[in-house]
């Protein structure tokens, strides 16, 4: 629960940084300022991409579905189209016939 809240907070912060306009770049009277030769608006969003990579690295730690993936990795994969013989109906039929 704590991890889920952390990830939700992180994503909310990232989205806020994307949507908010701390440098006043979206106002009609915005001057075309440059930063290291790049338009400031572009530099801001380029920096945002780098920040996103860092934040996603944190999200990986907090939101990695460990148990689910451990079960899958331990399972014997069913080859495509070579599932067991078809049970009668419903989910079991579809589950048993991946290639069907």
């Amino acid at each position, binding site marked *: 629960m704590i991890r889920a809240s952390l990830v939700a907070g992180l994503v909310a912060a990232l989205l806020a940084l994307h949507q908010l306009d701390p440098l006043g770049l979206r106002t009609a009277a915005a001057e075309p300022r440059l930063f290291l030769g790049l338009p400031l608006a572009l530099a801001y969003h380029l920096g945002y991409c780098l920040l996103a*990579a860092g934040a996603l*690295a944190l999200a990986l730690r907090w939101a*990695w579905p460990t148990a689910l993936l451990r079960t899958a990795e331990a399972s014997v994969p069913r*080859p495509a189209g070579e599932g067991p013989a078809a049970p009668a109906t419903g989910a079991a039929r579809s589950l048993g016939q991946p290639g069907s």
Partner: protein
Amino acid sequence: MTLLIVALYLAVVLAVGVASSRVFRGTGEDFFVASRSIGPLLLLVSLFGAHMTSFSLLGASAEAYQRGVGVFALMASSSAVVAPLLFLLVGTRVWALGKRFGYVTQVQYFRARFESDALGVVLFVVLVGLLLPYLLIGLLGAGLTLSQITGGLVADWLGSLLVVLVVLAYTTYGGMRGTMWVNAFQTSVFLVVGAVALTVVVRALGGLEAAMGQVAATQPQLLTLAPIGRGELLTYLLIPASVGMFPHLFQHWLTAERASAFRVSVIGYPLCIAMVWLPSILLGVLGRIDFPALAGRETSTVLVRLIDLHAPGLLSGLLAAGILSAVFSSFDSQVLALGTMFTHDVVRHHGLHDRMTSRQEVVVGRLFVVVVLAVAFALSRWVTPSIFKLGIWCFTGFAALLPIVLAALFWRRATAVGALAATLTVALGWTWLVLGGGTLPAALTAAGAMPVATLTVASAAAMVVGSLLSRPPSAATLAAFFPAEEPR
């Protein structure tokens, strides 16, 4: 010179495709999902290559030419968060289910999760229908580029046809494994070519600061976010959510050898996006200096025109190769996904394979792909919207289907009726808006809000209402798809 480089590039692509077919293991699983044996780096470059198309080079530069650097905020920085987040939340879970149950297509998963053949049929039709504009983006981009760069020597229809033939050749030979290796090569090409093209053009214009100064003097708004509406920026966040429902990305997720392979994609994706979109956006804006009055479909050629003006010959050829790389790397995955879906979701699922030899099954699968490509090719002679607009409409449809996969993975109460209602809502809404010329009420498009928001909300509402009004999934299905979580 330009044509020679393009011909050389095509020869290398075919050679990589044929060479990778030598490691083909001869099984269906290897053809469709590379025996689920792909490592982290190849997964990243092939996912990225499959996602990016001429939309990210020609479409992005054309849109930046018209609307400025804000296009980076609309598409690139939103994709940098939303796409990898979906890889983490959806991709890893889909991979786990694919490994446990042997899935190779989306429809197989949804049919089993929602216990419904009817849903499988409807989803198949809708997914193939939505893939058509995606295929069109590639065909239009390749045609425009080759025609422009050869001064009309290669007609745009011929360029489009060339793409179809080359892609059909190497996907048929190498299947998923061949496609992934070709994609790795192509992704490297278009990442490098974008950076080289930007460097050459900026040098020719007297340096970055001087070039930006020239743009600022005549079109200052292009260097700010002023042309982007608040509602537009907000709703564009939904556009990259389309990665959660692209059939070709779904199939790529299934190729990972281990779940940990996704880690590199999640962290590397924002960086790759920045590397591709930065040159496209900057070159689009700088195009205003040399070509101040392009209009309509002409704007899609601004990147090619710039290179042709400042670095004809060798670099023109390399740029064409870069654009073709971006086109091929998504086009091939889409072609493979179409063939896989038809073979598994139609031929095998409906028992048609019992009446066919293996060879006939392969021929029928390929015929289906050829028919879809012929339709896309015919449409490419007829459609008029820009590559960017076409891309946005295509992504809108897939993004609006996202509630289905989210509900399937995270909501035990989600049912086939809900999924069917959501799919039909998207199909009808999208058709009405795109083909029927429908328009949404002004309140729903305030401050530039995109139709994707309305369609996604409607789809989510249909999913919830349809599910709550129908019988819950069976206990067997819930036990299979929602195993009790072990403590960490």
